[in-house]
């Protein structure tokens, strides 16, 4: 083989592998992307039952009901709309009423969000960015949250 041919083989192999990688990515993007929605988004966009989404907002105060077998039910609100959520399992350390939460799962036929994952927070002052943006959009963002987010000093805020 000449130098040119060898180089062609190399470039061909490179382009081939890259093409496979791109094909894999496009395929995966079609199937495995999860959109983030606030309860208002769900109401406005008519997210169809069975579509996997992330739902974010605040856990409505007084809505948490613990059932048997570690079943819990609570409502997620962004101030304008609310959405009932069910989950079975152990809630993350920092799951609290009145605080931000992100849940992943599907909406069932009855309009209840069936979550299989509740995302854990790492810090008591951490407001998930998506939730903060959703609250700002719905006009229910309070500066109180911003202060807490900007000043990660735990003792004072409690």
């Amino acid at each position, binding site marked *: 083989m000449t130098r040119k041919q060898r180089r062609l083989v190399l470039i061909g192999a490179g382009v081939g592998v890259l093409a496979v990688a791109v094909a*894999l990515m496009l395929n995966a993007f079609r199937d495995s*992307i999860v959109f*983030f929605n606030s309860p208002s988004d769900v109401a406005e966009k008519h997210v169809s039952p069975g579509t996997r989404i992330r739902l974010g907002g605040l856990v409505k105060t007084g809505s948490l009901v613990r059932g048997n077998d*570690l079943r819990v039910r609570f409502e997620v609100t962004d101030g304008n709309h609310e959405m009932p959520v069910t989950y*079975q399992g*152990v809630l993350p*350390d920092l799951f609290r009423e009145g605080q931000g939460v992100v849940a*992943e799962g599907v909406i069932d036929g009855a309009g209840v969000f069936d979550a299989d994952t509740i995302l854990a927070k790492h810090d*008591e002052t951490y407001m998930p960015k998506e939730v903060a943006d959703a609250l700002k959009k719905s006009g229910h963002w309070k500066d109180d949250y911003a202060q807490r987010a900007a000043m990660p000093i*735990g003792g004072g805020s409690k």
Partner: protein
Amino acid sequence: MIPELGHYALMLALGLALIQGVMPIVGTRTNDPALMSIAVPAAQAQFVFVALAFASLAASYVMSDFSVLNVFENSHSQMPLIYRLTSVWGNHEGSMMLWVLILALFGALVATFGTNLPATLKANALAVQAWIAAAFHLFILTTSNPFIRIPDAPFEGHDLNPILQDPGLAIHPPLLYLGYVGFSISFSFAIAALIEGRIDAAWARWVRPWILGAWMCLTVGIAMGSYWAYYELGWGGFWFWDPVENASLMPWLAGTALLHSAVVMEKRAALKVWTILLAILAFSLSLIGTFLVRSGVLTSVHAFATDPTRGIFILGILVVFIGGALSLYAWRAPLLKQGGLFAPISREGALVFNNLFLTSACATVFVGTLYPLALEALTGDKISVGPPFFNATFGPLFIPLMLVMPFGPLMGWKRGDILSAAQRLFAAAILSAIAIAAAFALDHGGPVLAPFGVGIAVFVMAGAVTDVIERTMIMRIPLWAALRRAVGLPRSAWGTAFAHFGIGVTLLGIIGVTAWGTERIVAIRTGDSIDIAHYRLTFDGLFNRTGPNYRDVAGRFTVRRTSGELVGEMEPSRRTFPARNMATTEAALMTRGVSQLYLSLGDPNPDGTVPVRLYFKPHVLLIWLGAIIMFIGGGLSLSDRRLRVGAPRPAKAKAVLQPAE
């Protein structure tokens, strides 16, 4: 006084970095050895001053000087000494100080030990290193100054985020940074080569130890982070495809590719232009990782603060360095001479294969990590790209890599014989087939593909062993002669075998725990039992414990085999830190061979039951054991004779055309 000294030392370090960044380059242009040689003392002095600055910050932490804002926000006088020390880098400002400390350390090491480097290459490389240092010194001084005082010193600090109060924090960030920042050396050398417009095989020989060292630290750094997340976050996952984890995986993938392409360059003077590009990419990905983690575009345990000016500043550093480096590459790379020839089926060919798949896999991780950010910036849609994406892209690209890996070391340089390599791997293939059959026979309800995964892992391990057997001829010649050959084998050959074996071990662990791990999530009362795998855990009740700065509500569980034989006790707890009013889950782990029982508690329910998560993690320890084996492999390779004994003088253009071996 001490913080002010530190602050001043950092400013002096910035000044030294500026001198180190300009004078040597002027020296290489005007051919002035005196100006070029300024780089060496400047790099050493810069390290001394950065170390002084870091030491003063550390001293403020150890003495709990709460008049320093950074100490006040992140420390507490009741914390044990080790955590007061590690909280130096448990926050944004301090971790950037660690970053520049390691950067300066590497610069000083090159300056001190690079005595056999050509003067111009050394001067240019140290100057490039100084530009990076200057940018980050400026970043710290203008946006993230850890030495700021508060007028009325408070009596007590705000404590470190409890999740970070863990021995893991003492090890994970420094190792990771040694890896990240270690790639700055190969970057600086690559830029220096581009500035000179000349590169040869000797370049790879000088740079390879630095790549190897960075790669070793990054490997165990990532593994350490993974183990930390596993036991600290309470749900037993070892890898989440979290953007922050991906940020460390990308430089690792690029660095692994670089490590292999540098071998080709060193031995065969081929792939020069490509190696330079990889050296630029590996450090660029480290910078992008720093940006992702530190700028606050991602919220996670690693995003200590979200100050937009910092993000913009790091973005600026990113654009200047990555953009500048790639432009320089586009401009100067065509000047570099092409290297040796090789057939597609050869050791070089196998290493090119490795590079293609590693970089493609790196590209999929890159896209999966940055696509959500790009989409949100462009359309406002918020999406998450989770494990399914990476399993569907990264996985298929890694399988061919694993299958071909054992062939690589068995191929000859220049022109290899795939048939003969296949013959020598026959035993490995048989072992792998037996493993697949055994996995199928023992399988109870795992995924169908899992036994094949086990087969691949065994093939990789057996392939690494085959390489050693072939080289020592242990089956064909008397044992004593084979042992002599084993001792005489180049350390780098042992290094390859170890590192490849380690990959197989890690793979086996990942497959074992994802395919055959079991979990039980139940609410229990005192006296209840839970069965998992072949163990039975009995809940003996809750009790209270107090630590230096926390309170524990712990559960005591007796672990027996299902046959009734007592194995031991496990005490998971819920730990509350009053200073931050925050609770963490302290999981209990029980190691059985290389498998583990993993137990964590939830918040007790009002009806008196306690939610419990119990996992059986088969072979989970292999994941991190594999990383340690890879680290040992890297260490063996680093101690290779040809790297220890002084590297040769720079080869002239003529020598490049001769085969290196």
